[in-house]
């Protein structure tokens, strides 16, 4: 990064000065001038201005840089006063003064000029802040910073970083910085650097080696490509695992979407076309929760698990009482009626809430990914969904196998008349079962809100797949649904890299068709005489 050149001394100076510089008065505040120089159209000048700020050693510069990075540092058109926008949604924004950091009331977005930055400047700011972060006490921040600096070091950084490394306590940070320096040395044409980079899966290291492999110096080129080769070896294993993970994660989504249907359809025999919309309701519940609890998406998400279940379950009960109970023993009519219901629900959401998608924020602990090693990292949100799916499944199994309800459900579905005769209130069981299935659909919605659109069409995108999974697994068999979902997911993801997304899906469908030829009752058919005829 050329930008960082020359201001490193300034950075260090800045840290010595912290606390010693007296806060100057606004009028003859040097800060005003510094910020003025930012208010220009040309990005080159802006970059100069940023360097100036860094080297100024003004203790506020860090805050300025951060706000600039967030695009919150703005200038009042008429007064030329610089402010920091606290909240930039809606028509008029609360602001604080950029020099004194005092509250400056509200300003209309009309009157404010944003000090825009582009990706180049963003990079400059990030590495500048990263260098600063190297001096913080929080070890994670330091590691983050070191990672950020990988591949963006230049001559001026080398010396200071050496010192940093010298008194850095944390091995990981040291390693990263060493690597960073090595990358730099490699770009300078130092062949020994390659040795240090060997075996690293870090993508920036690979980038560096790749460009080295293209260098004119045959020695370096060969060494680099040699290093690359054994990196590739490792990566192949990792990407294999990665694909498997992708598959399971996709599978878990399918399972979640289908498992509710496995109850309503598989166990009760209701062809519930509104299943997708029940999922949608769950997702919207999550959104609503986040609206109710602004600022704490995590809590909202956790709360919306029971809430989503409840909402969907209630909707389910409404459907069961309102429609399905009149259609006993006419499963195909339920298809017709519930399709109508699904149309109504969709349009209801469009009219009542909005035809547009809604934003559902992922809490911090669910965004980003879990780094197994530098070559393999598992995206957290999907990891959670995967776990969630398994928990839901386990819970459902428990209900069906271990509880009174489960027993009654199985009794009623196997022989309604007999069950009634034994004093089981069949209607009540129906309601409960349908509510359960619908509730689970709601849970699926809550999870899906973390992966995909929350909009009126959410349900439609999953209904077909759900039926496929249930049938493929064998109607009325929860294990079947689980296995079917996961295996279809894996197959799909394994095929995708070489077949492409569309073809992969087609192949999977054809596979299902052919599979049903071989096993006309799915993966886990209900056996014995009961299933005959």
């Amino acid at each position: 990064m050329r930008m960082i050149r020359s201001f490193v001394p300034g950075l260090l100076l800045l840290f010595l000065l912290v606390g010693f510089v007296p806060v100057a008065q606004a009028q003859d505040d040097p800060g005003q001038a510094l910020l003025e120089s930012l208010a220009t159209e040309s990005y080159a000048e802006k970059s100069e201005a940023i360097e100036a700020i860094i080297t100024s050693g003004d203790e506020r510069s860090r805050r300025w840089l951060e706000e600039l990075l967030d695009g919150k540092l703005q200038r009042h058109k008429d007064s030329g006063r610089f402010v920091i926008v606290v909240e930039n949604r809606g028509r008029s924004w609360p602001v604080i003064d950029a020099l004194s950091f005092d509250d400056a009331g509200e300003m209309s977005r009309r009157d404010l000029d944003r000090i825009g930055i582009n990706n180049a400047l963003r990079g400059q700011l990030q590495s500048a802040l990263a260098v600063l972060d190297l001096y913080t006490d929080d070890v994670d921040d330091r590691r983050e910073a070191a990672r950020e600096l990988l591949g963006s070091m230049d001559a001026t950084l080398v010396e200071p970083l050496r010192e940093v490394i010298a008194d850095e306590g944390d091995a990981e940070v040291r390693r990263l910085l060493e690597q960073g320096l090595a990358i730099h040395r490699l770009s300078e044409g130092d062949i020994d650097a390659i040795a240090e980079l060997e075996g690293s899966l870090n993508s920036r290291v690979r980038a560096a080696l790749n460009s080295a492999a293209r260098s004119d110096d045959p020695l370096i080129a060969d060494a680099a490509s040699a290093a690359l080769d054994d990196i590739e070896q490792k990566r192949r294993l990792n990407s294999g695992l990665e694909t498997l993970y992708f598959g399971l994660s996709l599978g878990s989504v399918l399972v979640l979407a289908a498992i509710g249907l496995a109850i309503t359809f598989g166990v009760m025999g209701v062809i519930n076309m509104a299943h997708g919309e029940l999922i949608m309701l769950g997702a919207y519940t999550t959104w609503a929760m986040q609206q109710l609890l602004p600022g704490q998406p995590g809590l909202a998400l956790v709360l919306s698990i029971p809430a989503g279940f409840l909402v969907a379950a209630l909707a389910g009960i409404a459907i069961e009482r309102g429609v399905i109970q009149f259609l006993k023993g006419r499963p195909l009519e339920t298809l017709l009626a519930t399709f109508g219901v699904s149309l109504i629900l969709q349009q209801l959401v469009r009219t009542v809430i909005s035809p547009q998608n809604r934003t559902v924020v992922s809490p911090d602990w669910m965004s980003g990914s879990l780094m197994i090693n530098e070559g393999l990292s598992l995206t957290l949100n999907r990891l959670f969904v995967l776990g969630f799916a398994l928990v839901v499944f386990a819970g459902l199994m428990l209900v069906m196998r271990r509880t009174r309800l489960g027993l009654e459900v199985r009794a009623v579905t196997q022989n309604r008349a007999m069950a009634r005769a034994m004093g089981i209130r069949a209607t009540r069981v129906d309601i409960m079962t349908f509510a359960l299935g619908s509730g689970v659909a709601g849970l699926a919605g809550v999870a899906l809100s973390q992966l995909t659109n929350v909009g009126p069409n959410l349900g439609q995108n999953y209904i077909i797949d759900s039926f496929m999974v249930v049938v493929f697994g064998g109607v009325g068999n929860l294990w079947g649904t689980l296995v079917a979902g996961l295996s279809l997911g894996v197959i799909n993801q394994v095929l995708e890299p070489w077949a492409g997304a569309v073809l992969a899906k087609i192949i999977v469908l054809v596979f299902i068709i052919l599979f049903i030829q071989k096993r006309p009752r799915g993966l886990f058919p209900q056996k014995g005489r009961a299933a005959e005829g």
Partner: protein
Amino acid sequence: MSFISSLADRDRVFDFLVPATSPVDVRHGPILYLEDVTVTFDGFKAIDDLNLTIDDGELRCIIGPNGAGKTTMMDIITGKTRPDSGSVWFGSRHNLLAMSEPEIASLGIGRKFQKPTVFEALTVFENLELAMAADKRILPTLTARMSGEIRDRIEEVLDTIGLVELRDGPAGILSHGQKQWLEIGMLLMQRPRLLLVDEPVAGMTEQEMERTAELLTGLAGKGKQSVVVVEHDMGFVRSIARTVTVLHQGSVLAEGSMDQVSQDPKVVEVYLGADPDEEAA
């Protein structure tokens, strides 16, 4: 005596009782021959190493407690269920295990289900029409026309099974007993060489039972149909039985005349010991 004559008499009247010419080769005695047949449902042995021989023209009654494998045995003979091991021969030429239901049916094996299954949406008349021995390929079926002769035969059977006045009503509205009769009627239309009759008199009144008994005994005879009756109702069995086979846990427990088997201590223990009525229910 009068019984015999009435039989002969009935023989003449119901000329349709003369079986359709079937390719089955019975020169070497048995028309049906099961050997070491075994079949299991999820580990449970429904049929365990069963051996059974039915001679041409014989009327055989098969009894046994619930779950003895009676119905499963029929499923195997008619090709609905494939046994895990063993062999099933129709006459000495046809290996039934290698054939599909329709093939077996067209060989001349007719079956009446335990639970009477007729085509409820169709009329009684149509039920019989479909059952009738005829060219059952697609195009002939599509263009098939109702000839007077066919009509007469159906009328005859309708008369036999006493459903003349219900001929145009949907079979769905028939009583249980009537359905039983209709199904037997369908068997007659098929003109099979071997009839497998599963609980023919369940839910029938005394008179109906008598008629059924006469009919079945009338059917069986050398060069005519062979009949295998599975029944719970001891009274009925006694009234028609010549040879009785007792099934237990999927294999033959005893075989012989009604009196022989009813003396057999094993049989008494597993079966007759219990109250027949209860069994029949």
